[in-house]
């Protein structure tokens, strides 16, 4: 099972010191946090995507590439990549590029986004958000699995004889997680392709997520990818850890009280009782996280939100230290001990390569020479199969 952190990339005033970090400071801090996450033994670092202040992460692949250059082991992911307002062709290209540079330590989580104006800013219609997401992913999937794509849809310019470059590393696309709070079509799409499903899980009632996850597991099995228990599930959570419960609550309370995400309404105690938020001693975080498994079944990836609400960098790094030393090792042991036999591990590039090729050398696409017109045609690579029926654009 993988444990990691995810960030929404908010730049928030520290309610205790009164300081608001600059964009420059917060971006540098994000890299420090990711490097620290690897140092303390976490498996995953994921960053969100936003296109308005007070957030910084408009270009996740750039950030993740910089982190990839400074780390060796941690898997880099997103939380989420906007499958609605991004051109799926650009997603295919950018994340394949990142995957090469990170030597396979890349996957991504797709989401529709919850900032309404982003749709018109990028020329999209929010009322079409769901079909847009579904159609875009169908195209993204083809761009990553087929060398040459002829495609026509409702929301994007048609493609004829298009090859997305570079081809995914070892011709194995980054693993895709589909994030959704309440949309069965997204769960169905994840199940159809045998992709992962991520339930942000930050707001309960948990019954909603529970039924969505259950539906995804059933449909995953229906499409022949394995048993319902072998479906690939990820969950979010939030934690603030200190040596004692009292200390954790005293330290986190000013951040909780000031954070707009908590609505300035219910008390921290109410949130702790009713949502996955954990604020307490390492043992309290462990107990609460173990309860997720009872709700959703054995799962593959647990991400914690640790760097939001204006918590200063020093505190976040201390939190990661505690998470890595006192919480995660116990969770690994306890989750493993409770795990039913036959449950899948979280897919990694290595496991996906092995699943595709066994012990055979992975495919390494080598392009054919340029014909002089910059159009590669039906056989862009020396080993491209067939090449049927491409309609060339008129030149």
């Amino acid at each position, binding site marked *: 099972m993988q444990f990691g952190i995810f960030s929404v990339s908010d730049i928030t005033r520290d309610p205790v010191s009164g300081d608001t970090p600059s964009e420059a400071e917060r971006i540098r801090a994000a890299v420090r946090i990711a490097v620290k996450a690897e140092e303390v033994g976490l498996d995953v670092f994921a960053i969100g995507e936003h296109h308005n202040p007070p957030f910084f992460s408009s270009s996740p692949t750039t950030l993740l590439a910089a982190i990839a250059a400074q780390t060796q082991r941690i898997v880099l992911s997103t939380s989420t990549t906007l499958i609605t307002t991004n051109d799926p062709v650009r997603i295919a290209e950018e994340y394949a590029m990142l995957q090469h540079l990170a030597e396979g330590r890349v996957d991504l989580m797709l989401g529709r986004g919850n900032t309404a104006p982003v749709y018109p800013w990028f020329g999209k219609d929010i009322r079409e958000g*769901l*079909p847009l997401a*579904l*159609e875009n992913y*169908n195209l993204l*999937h083809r761009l990553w699995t087929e060398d040459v794509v002829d495609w*026509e*849809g*409702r929301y994007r310019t048609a493609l004829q004889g298009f090859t997305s470059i570079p081809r995914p590393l070892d011709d194995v696309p980054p693993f895709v997680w589909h994030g959704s709070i*309440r*949309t*069965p*079509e*997204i769960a*169905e*799409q994840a199940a*159809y*392709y045998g992709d992962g499903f991520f339930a942000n899980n930050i*707001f*309960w*009632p948990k*019954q*909603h997520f529970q*039924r*969505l996850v259950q*539906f995804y597991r059933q449909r995953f099995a229906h499409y022949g990818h394995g048993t319902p228990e072998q479906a690939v599930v990820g969950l979010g959570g939030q934690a603030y850890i200190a040596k004692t419960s009292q200390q954790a609550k005293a330290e986190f309370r000013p951040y909780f009280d000031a954070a707009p995400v*908590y*609505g*300035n*309404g*219910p008390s921290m105690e*109410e*949130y702790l009782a*009713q*949502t996955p938020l954990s604020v307490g001693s390492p043992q309290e975080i462990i107990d609460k996280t173990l309860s997720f498994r009872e709700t959703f079944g054995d799962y593959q990836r647990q991400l914690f939100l640790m760097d939001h609400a204006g918590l200063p960098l020093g505190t976040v790094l201390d939190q990661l230290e505690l998470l890595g030393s006192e919480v995660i090792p116990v969770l690994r042991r306890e989750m493993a001990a409770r795990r039913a036999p036959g449950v899948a591990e979280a897919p990694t590039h290595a496991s996906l390569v092995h699943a595709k090729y066994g012990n055979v050398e992975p495919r390494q696409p080598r392009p054919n020479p340029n014909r002089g017109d910059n159009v590669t045609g039906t056989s862009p690579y020396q080993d491209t199969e067939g090449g049927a029926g491409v309609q060339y654009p008129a030149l």
Partner: protein
Amino acid sequence: MSDTAQTSDRVRVVAISAGMSDSSSTRMLVDRLLAALHTQAKESGRELSAQVVELRPLAAELAQTVTSGLVGPRVQDALDTLAGADAVIAATPVYRAGVSGLFKMFFDVIEGDVLLAMPVALLATAGTPRHALVVDDQMRALFAYFRALSAPTSLFAGGPDWGSASLSTRTERVAAELLALAESRVRPRILGTAGAHYRHTFDGAADAAGTPGSLDLGSDLMRLATGGSLDPE
């Protein structure tokens, strides 16, 4: 399944009352309607159970639900109660030419499909008869949005109505209409035959209560989800 079979003859009425005092004229109107329902159910040999959800004690938690998205335990209880209804009484006072804020706040946080094909009696009280059309102008439209089946007669009591025998007559009529809608089992029939055609999300308390049935896996969106395409426009 045996539970369902046993309780299928019993009509479960849930009243949502947004009255502001204890007891309020809104609650009085609800109680009169419940009394009429009990009498008529008894006459037709029908078992009837009634629960009244008073919104006033939920006011603070409802406000937090609206601002934070976090559904508190008492609001959740009320939502669960509503989801278990065969027929609903929706009752609000009118202060300023509209349903009360508390009443609207509750219906702002219910699940979108929980009132699908639900028989609903519309009730309002006011200090003046000039608010009489709030029931038909606003409440009927609100419950049309929820795709509920509102009883044809609305029950409004504004000042002088409390001294008029016609209030009793109308109460009897609303009771008869609501009971007829519930007894005809029109809701389970609609959900049973057409339930899958309503697009619903997994936030549905109606789903949790066993309705409106399974998802339509053959919808355009579901086909798109599984690698299909939309007709280009």
